[in-house]
């Protein structure tokens, strides 16, 4: 066991996960010696129970949902330490949720007032992806994952993600717009209706709208500059052999 622990590389990452979650978790889990089992010589030590603490924290904001993984984790971590229990440890490591059936979300279990609660589906998928990001799992031919985010209708996405941000941005734009209209009026005496008729003002308005759409945070400036550079970088690398040519001509 100690030898296999020595050869096992990722414990640092698992322990870095710990501080984020334990202070949030109301349930104390005897924290994780990573579980190692050697299924065949030379292949793949695995740490099945590594993610149990992260599940605890994730489950926390939604206490009303059943918690099969957590219960099993509590059992498992206090359980056996040897290689003999490889099958139990394997089950612990996988993402489990009663509504996740056959590699996709069972929409029938997401019913609310007779129609599907898409917000809950989105939440469930977010939790699943978070779990898998922290604890990458093996794929399996017997239980393939076939979930496709496009089964969630477009208006559910709009309502949840686009509308709040749109409200924020429009609100800011309205406040700035009102203030600028007042400022221009006080400085030049041109009223709102006349401002809208002026070409210069219309251009400014266009620039302002585009600017607000593209640049939401300070980092966006640099991001856009980097993007523009990126789009032409590969071309430059290919043209380098021709560049050489014209330089020597100019010499």
């Amino acid at each position, binding site marked *: 066991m100690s030898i296999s622990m020595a050869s096992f590389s990722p414990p640092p990452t698992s322990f870095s996960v710990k501080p984020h979650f334990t202070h949030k978790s109301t349930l104390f889990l005897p924290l994780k010696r990573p579980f190692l089992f050697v299924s065949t010589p030379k292949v793949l030590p695995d740490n099945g129970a590594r993610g149990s603490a992260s599940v605890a924290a994730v489950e926390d904001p939604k206490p009303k949902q059943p918690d099969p993984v957590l219960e099993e984790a509590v059992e498992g971590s206090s359980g056996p330490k040897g290689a003999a229990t490889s099958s139990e440890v394997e089950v612990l490591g996988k993402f489990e949720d009663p509504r996740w059936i056959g590699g996709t979300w069972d929409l029938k279990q997401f019913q609310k007032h007779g129609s599907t609660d898409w917000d809950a589906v*989105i939440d469930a998928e977010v939790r699943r992806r978070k779990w898998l*990001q922290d604890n990458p799992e093996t794929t399996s031919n017997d239980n393939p994952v076939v979930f496709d985010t496009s089964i969630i209708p477009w208006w559910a996405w709009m309502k949840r993600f686009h509308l709040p941000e749109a409200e924020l941005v429009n609100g800011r734009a309205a406040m700035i717009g009102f203030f600028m209209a007042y400022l221009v009026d006080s400085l030049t005496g041109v009223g709102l209706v006349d401002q809208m008729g002026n070409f210069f003002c219309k251009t400014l308005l266009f620039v302002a709208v585009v600017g607000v759409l593209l640049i939401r945070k300070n980092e966006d400036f640099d991001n856009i500059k980097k993007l523009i550079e990126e789009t032409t970088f590969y071309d430059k690398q290919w043209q380098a052999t021709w560049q050489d040519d014209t330089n020597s001509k100019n010499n």
Partner: protein
Amino acid sequence: MSSIAFKPFTGLRRSSAVPTTTNTTPSKPVIKFHVSAAKTSPKLSNRDLRVAVIGGGPAGGAAAETLAKGGIETFLIERKLDNCKPCGGAIPLCMVGEFDLPLDIIDRRVTKMKMISPSNIAVDIGQTLKPHEYIGMVRREVLDAYLRDRAKENGANVINGLFLKMDMPKHWDEPYVLHYTEYDGKKGAMGEKVTLEVDAVIGADGANSRVAKAINAGDYDYAIAFQERIKIPDDKMVYYENLAEMYVGDDVSPDFYGWVFPKCDHVAVGTGTVTHKSDIKKFQLATRNRAKDKILGGKIIRVEAHPIPEHPRPRRLSGRVALVGDAAGYVTKCSGEGIYFAAKSGRMCAEAIVEGSQNGKKMVDEGDLRKYLEKWDKTYWPTYKVLDVLQKVFYRSNPAREAFVEMCADEYVQKMTFNSYLYKTVAPGNPLEDLKLAVNTIGSLVRANALRKEMEKLNI
């Protein structure tokens, strides 16, 4: 007249052509008329043109064959004739036809692929393939040896030697002097130092090309590909009979993908990266973890790694020395495919030399070799650019990869992808379908990014 059409290139010829003093050489006053180079280059009176091909991989083998067929005295210098190169080993369908490869070289025909996203969403692609279409999996030692032997049959001299350095000619009509160590069974392991005079050189010696160093070709960014060959139990091997897998995710690689490719009787599991080379072992572990169920019980029989160029070298040509294949940096982004492009560039360069020298009867010059570069860039630039864009868009981050896998489920995408991969042409599709595809892509990206933002909220 035609000097205007060739304006960008006369500059180099002007600088390499030594001024008036060489005009007094017995050969014709060539310098002024370099524009239509082949017609006025000096005829080689008593011999054929001599060309050395350094490196005996697909690029070298293809180049040597074309040169030999064109009547040129060819020397193919390869340091290890039984080299078992670490390589994915995938060749597109068009290569079989274009290079007349016998079908028994191909160990497996992959007709199905599985793309697996970071959250293990698996998508099968390959339903749109016609019955005669496949991706061929070859063993490099078999393919390379076959191409070299064919070159030998056509008259090339295959030399087992290690290229050391090259003396550049001081005058344009002097030969290149190659220094190499010849390995001959009799002399033992040390080999003896030999020099060889040739008129032109094709550098096909791979990612760590010495020819490239000799001509100051410059450096390129490169990825490290790390691969383990694993022999898995027969019942698990059935699954990989004609299926290859591609795993994407931050755990597997931050800027590339992990793969499981079937080979003759085992699978190759590997991954690669450009930006995080020191973490390659971690990525390999993660790749094996993701495929764990399917390779359980397997034994690692070989571990190998090799560099993959990410873009062409700044200079692919100098004087009468040209680079082809990996030495030039002709590996595509996104898929990391290099065998076909190596062979094709070797052939194209050789064709340019054969044409420029009129089947070995005249001296070539840089302009003839430039034609190969022109043709190459014109033919394959769209392919490279499209793959570069795909890599930049879809390998950026986990949401992008999720969107990528989602998009692969679309039949139109599969059709376009396979057509362009198997036949190496970027064919314009149906504009309406393209528009739908663009909308769907943006939709997938937006959804995946929205989910990721929610995931970040969970962290806090």
